[in-house]
């Protein structure tokens, strides 16, 4: 089996190497007392306060834009707001029996994934069915590289449940219709690599990529595995993370909707991987928090600070605690450290200079759109400039400008059309008038055309008068 060997093929420049921390086996977190299921504000809630729900019972309906959400514990619905359904757990965890659906084609899979609430578990939480629907891929890329150096949930999953992960990948291949399947795994995850290799069927190709952040970013992973540059779409590639494949396996083989996920918790350099029900308050997973501690979800590099009352949702891949503050930014000293680590070979120091304005043309010239906002540059910046955040907001400002420009262009187009129509009308009327005058000018009184014209004009006048008298009488009668 020549194709199943793990080997590295390509490399990228830049990136950061960060020593991994040791971690233990996946633990199952205790059921929360109250699960606060996050729901989309636009979705339709199908339960009401006081209802008894079972574990896995849908609480919202799905459509082609949003996936369903499910009760992650059994118990009673105690409150419903625009974006949460809170369920008081009865601690019995009585399962809800889902209808088993038969799967014949891609559409059936998409329907199933939608009703099972499947979203990408790498952190972006993009609906799986929407992703599948967006393109007919030739290649399926499986992201088995962790997306952040402080996250270990996918590695733990592969170490302990690789057979199921592989079955999930099989499902992903069928559901996407891809002809080729590549799994990219970081080379320092030796135990996970071994486990994956042990179950790997012939038609999947396992490729080792260097354990350098951001190897787990889709675009970087694609380049590392295939040498192809550019966005995934341009390369007819679809990418799923291993945890998402595992969820597919659960949905298809076990009819189990997405009600739990593995979360990496880093507390005082101690790493735990917990299987947590969606909607569990993070406080219940941590030792008592001090007020000054910031809770960060989404990893060390691209994570965001959330409130201490945050509840685990489908995108919560990790919870980190942070006590010291980010030092204030000082002026850029043009040291170029940021350029050295940028995996996209951009020039962050110049981008920074132009992003503060922002100067759209220059930013485009500097390929701002290629920035994957990995944050490598700010991690090494001696002036502590939050570069990736600035690039993100510059992108959004440009987007806004562009939509506005587009709107203005559309309005201008409409107005110009309107003007053109008007001038056309005047030209037409002028022409008509001219041709009539021409006919009337002819001396021959018996001219048929002339007669007809005069008759028509008389008729028009008569009609007009009739209308006027009508109106007048109307007025009189109302008086």
């Amino acid at each position, binding site marked *: 089996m020549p194709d199943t060997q793990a080997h590295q093929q390509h490399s990228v420049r830049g990136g*950061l190497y*960060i020593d991994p921390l040791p971690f233990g086996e996946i633990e199952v977190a205790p059921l929360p007392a109250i699960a606060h299921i996050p729901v989309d504000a636009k979705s339709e809630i199908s339960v009401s306060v006081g209802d008894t729900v079972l574990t896995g019972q849908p609480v919202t309906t799905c459509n082609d834009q949003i996936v369903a959400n499910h009760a992650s514990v059994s118990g009673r619905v105690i409150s419903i707001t625009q974006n949460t359904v809170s369920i008081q757990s009865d601690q019995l965890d009585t399962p809800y029996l889902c209808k088993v659906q038969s799967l014949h084609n891609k559409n059936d899979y998409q329907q199933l994934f939608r009703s099972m609430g499947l979203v990408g578990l790498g952190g972006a939480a993009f609906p799986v069915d929407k992703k599948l629907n967006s393109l007919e891929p030739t290649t399926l890329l499986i992201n088995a590289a962790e997306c952040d*150096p402080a996250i270990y949930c996918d590695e733990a999953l592969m170490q302990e449940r690789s057979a199921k992960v592989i079955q999930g990948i099989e499902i992903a291949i069928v559901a996407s219709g891809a002809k080729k399947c590549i799994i990219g795994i970081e080379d320092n995850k030796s135990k996970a690599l071994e486990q994956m290799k042990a179950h790997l069927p012939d038609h999947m190709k396992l490729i080792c990529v260097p354990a350098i952040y951001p190897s787990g970013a889709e675009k970087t992973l694609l380049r590392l595995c295939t040498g192809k540059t550019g966005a995934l779409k341009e390369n007819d590639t679809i990418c799923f993370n291993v945890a998402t494949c595992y969820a597919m396996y659960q949905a298809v083989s076990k009819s189990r909707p997405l009600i739990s996920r593995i979360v990496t918790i880093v507390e005082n350099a101690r790493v735990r991987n917990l299987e947590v029900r969606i909607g569990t308050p993070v406080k219940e997973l941590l030792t008592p928090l001090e007020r000054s501690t*910031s809770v*960060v979800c989404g990893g*060390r*590099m*691209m*994570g*965001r*600070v959330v409130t201490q009352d945050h509840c685990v949702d489908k995108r919560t891949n990790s919870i980190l605690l*942070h006590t*010291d503050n*980010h030092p204030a930014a*000082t*002026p*850029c*000293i*043009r*040291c*170029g*450290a940021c*350029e*050295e680590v940028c995996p996209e*070979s*951009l*020039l962050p*120091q*110049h981008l920074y200079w132009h992003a503060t304005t922002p100067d759209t043309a*220059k930013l485009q*010239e*500097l*390929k701002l759109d290629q920035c994957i906002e990995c*944050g490598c540059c*700010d*991690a*090494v*910046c*001696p*002036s502590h400039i*939050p570069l*990736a*955040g600035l690039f*993100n907001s510059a992108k959004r400002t440009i987007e806004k400008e562009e939509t506005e420009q587009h709107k203005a262009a559309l309005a201008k187009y409409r107005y110009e059309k309107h003007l053109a129509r008007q001038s056309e009308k005047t030209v037409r009327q002028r022409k008509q008038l001219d041709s009539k005058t021409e006919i009337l000018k002819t001396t021959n009184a018996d001219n048929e055309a002339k007669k007809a014209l005069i008759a028509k004009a008389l008729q028009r006048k008569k009609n007009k008068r009739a209308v006027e008298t009508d109106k007048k009488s109307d007025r009189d009668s109302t008086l």
Partner: protein
Amino acid sequence: MNQFTSIQSPLSVSQTMKLVLLALLPGTLVFTYLNGWGAIINIVLSVISALIFEAVAQKLRSRTITTALSDFSAVVTAILIALCLPPLIPWWIPVLATGFSILLAKHAFGGIGNNIFNPAMVGYAIVLISFPADLSLWLQQPVGGSVSFNEAIGAVFRGGLTVLPNWDVLTGATALDQHRTLVLQDSALAEIESQTKGLFAVANSEWLNLAYLVGGLWMFKKRVINWHIPVSFLGTLLLAMALHKLLSDSPLSLSVNLFGGATMLGAFFIATDPVSAAASVRGRIIFGAMTGLLVYLIRVYGAYPDSIAFAILLANCTVPAIDRLDIWLNRPGNGQ
């Protein structure tokens, strides 16, 4: 900003400056050995006045004074200036030089990070143009003509070297001066090298340059500087000199040019100031080459025997153009 990152602390400005000071230590010691008490007086005067000017500037700009002083960049600037100045110049020359560099070149432009010119070189260049006579008198090396501490203090505070009764026997031409005169007289290369001969390159200043080179390599190892500027600077300088020799049959000595004057100080400590150099790898290589070329042009065709300061200041002027060129070269469709 809810974007949050903190992973390994990169070297802060003050840490970098401390490392630079350490790297300057061997050079400073050799400089002091060569120039005697005058060197120490220059260093002390520069450092004290730089700290005072820095505090005044911070006060004027309503900043906190302590943090600004603790970043050590003013000290580095002061020492770089002192290492360019000859010993036993009147006390107000180092003070003026640091004043111009801290107040004008640094703070008038908006402080560290916003200065377009290398502050130390601005200060030095201004006094060099204003007081060319004082700035060209160097004592005999080593140990600065054996002038005693009392004599030195007296000279510095009473109008400079020329107040000493026997000042003309105490002074000596620098290697680059000798080299320049001899090249202009079209002497043979062998003669030039024999007149300036030291152990391996140029008497006395070879040790100074070697000390700067060692400090520079150590900074490179500590990742305080990148190789780009020193390598392209020295490479271009050597290449230009060699080509000149080849084409015009001139008796230029490459070893004197490499190990004489402030060549290594410029290559490793001055041109590498990130703020006033180009910001990217490609830009830095162009910047270094530009500096090397300018040093060659001024040394061979100009009126100054050493030319590091002017070359670096002129190269600083080209930085915006280099940045633009760099962006242009990096634009989409130009490969990676």
